[in-house]
């Protein structure tokens, strides 16, 4: 059995909604192994992004614990969380969220860990994602698919343990969306990462290893 890289245990999360608390996630548990590509689906407003934010240490759960690469990070300080996000988590957002003032290769070197200015790693990722030709382009001059592929390359640059993607294909048409999901899958398999992808697009679910659905605040595995 492969190593579990991400483990959520009994996560509860509620938002303050006016005067009352609204529970969004209730006792959610989930584990993702190295080399596993999991999908999370569910209706709009069901809490998919909330779950991903908890896993990505952007939100603190009300209860439950988070383990990344076997280490409990539930009560890490703000500073530690930032470091963990930098080194152990790769994010792919719905709209690329690239920095407008950086060329593709700088997008990667910018987040690359201090000290490890490894140019060959950048070259390798650009090649694998087929965006070598965009190396010196600004995001504004690239197509949506190229931008999203750059964002994927950025997510992988620090060799993280887990990849979290929130609707990475939503801004693309079906064909390009599928190509992007395929690339995430290929990188996850090759580099042996644990990945969660939140998506609305049922047509790309066949690319994933497991599909979870959030329904009535709970997470259920689909089969």
């Amino acid at each position, binding site marked *: 059995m492969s190593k579990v890289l991400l483990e959520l245990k009994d996560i509860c999360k509620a938002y303050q909604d006016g005067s009352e608390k609204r529970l969004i996630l209730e006792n959610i548990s989930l584990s993702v192994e190295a080399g596993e590509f999991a999908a999370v689906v569910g209706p709009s407003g069901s809490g998919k*992004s909330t779950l*991903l*934010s908890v896993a*990505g240490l*952007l*939100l603190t759960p009300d209860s439950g614990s988070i383990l990344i690469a076997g280490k409990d990070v539930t009560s890490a300080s703000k*500073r530690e969380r*930032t*470091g*963990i*996000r*930098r*080194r152990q*988590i790769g*994010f792919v*957002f*719905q*709209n690329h*969220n690239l*920095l*407008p*003032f*950086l060329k593709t290769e*700088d997008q990667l070197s*910018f*987040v690359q860990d201090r000290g490890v200015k490894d140019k060959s790693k950048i070259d390798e990722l650009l090649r694998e994602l087929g965006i070598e030709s965009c190396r010196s382009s*600004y995001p504004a001059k690239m197509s949506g698919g190229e931008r999203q592929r750059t964002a994927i390359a*950025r997510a992988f640059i*620090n060799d993280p343990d887990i990849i979290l993607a*929130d*609707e990475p294909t*939503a801004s693309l048409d079906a064909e390009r969306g599928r190509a992007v999901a395929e690339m995430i899958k290929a990188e996850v398999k090759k580099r042996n990462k644990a990945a969660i992808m939140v998506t609305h697009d049922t047509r790309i679910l066949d690319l994933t290893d497991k599909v979870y659905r959030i329904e009535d605040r709970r997470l259920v595995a689909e089969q």
Partner: protein
Amino acid sequence: MRYALKEIAFEKKKYILIELLLILLMFMVLFLSGLASGLGRAVTSAIETMDADSFVVDESAEKMITVSKVETGLLDELRAKGVEAAPLDIHRMHIRKQDDDEKLNITYFAIEAGSFIEPEVIEGKGLSHSDGEATILLDDDFRVEGISVGDKVVDAAAGTEFTVAGFVKDRMYGHTSVGYITTDSYTKLRQALSPMYVPEYHAIAVKGDKDLGLDPDILESVSKKEIIKNIPSYTAENMTITMIVWVLVIISAVIIGIFNYIMTLQKRRQFGVMKAIGLSGGELAGMLICEVCIVSVFAGIVSLGLTFGMAAAMPEKMPFYLEVSNAVTVTAAFVVISVLSSLLSVINISRIDPIIAIGGGDNE
């Protein structure tokens, strides 16, 4: 640093505009500060450049040479003690060219020919080179009036004639140019005006810090700095302009701060994303401060260049005097205040929650 530069390069237009604004402001600051010290110099330069460390004046003169009276005997007393001392009288009068009725303001500095407070000439000869006739060394501003070495000038009130022996540079006192004459000439001039005049000195200039053994009830030794401060109107004039200069420095620096703050407000989402992907608050603050430094240092250097270029092209008589050290201080202060004022943006960034990176969100 690298990424800060890239961001500036990407936002060229915005940054060029702000640079222009800052360069103009800083240029104004430096220019004013040049004028301020120029005006200040016009009041003090003859004292400032004098090769003396302190002045003996009478106790009741309140540190003003022009109203002080010192007996001539004191000079010999001091010299007998081995003190390097030289007599000095300062007297504001008018002179005119020999065949001209136009009166020119002058402040006589009556000194002993060859003493250590005699300035170096930039043209002609020193006071001790006279062939019996009364000589005068003039500030080079008098050249503009068409006076040259060998000409005769006349004291407008006493009618005493002086031959111009030479010119000295940058010697002003109380907004007038200085003329150096010998103590003997000065005594004669005073006696021509009032026959009752008894020779005495306004002050005695002293070099070194030997104990003078003065009677504290009658006499007082005052440092050069204190003497300059007490020249009438000097402090008041100087303070006003210095205030204006510093207010302008602060305004320019705050403009950078505000500009920066607006930029960070516009880029909230960008900062959220950077935080989400693991850039620490310190790194972001570093980048921001780096940008501010680049912008302000650049504006500072360009305006320094402009100011000194302008100063070189300015007419002689313009009271402009900017010491490099002074200008650099002002510029450095500007950079420092800019950085301080951008701390507001740093605080703003530190408050951004990286969660805004998740979800579709409104762009930018």
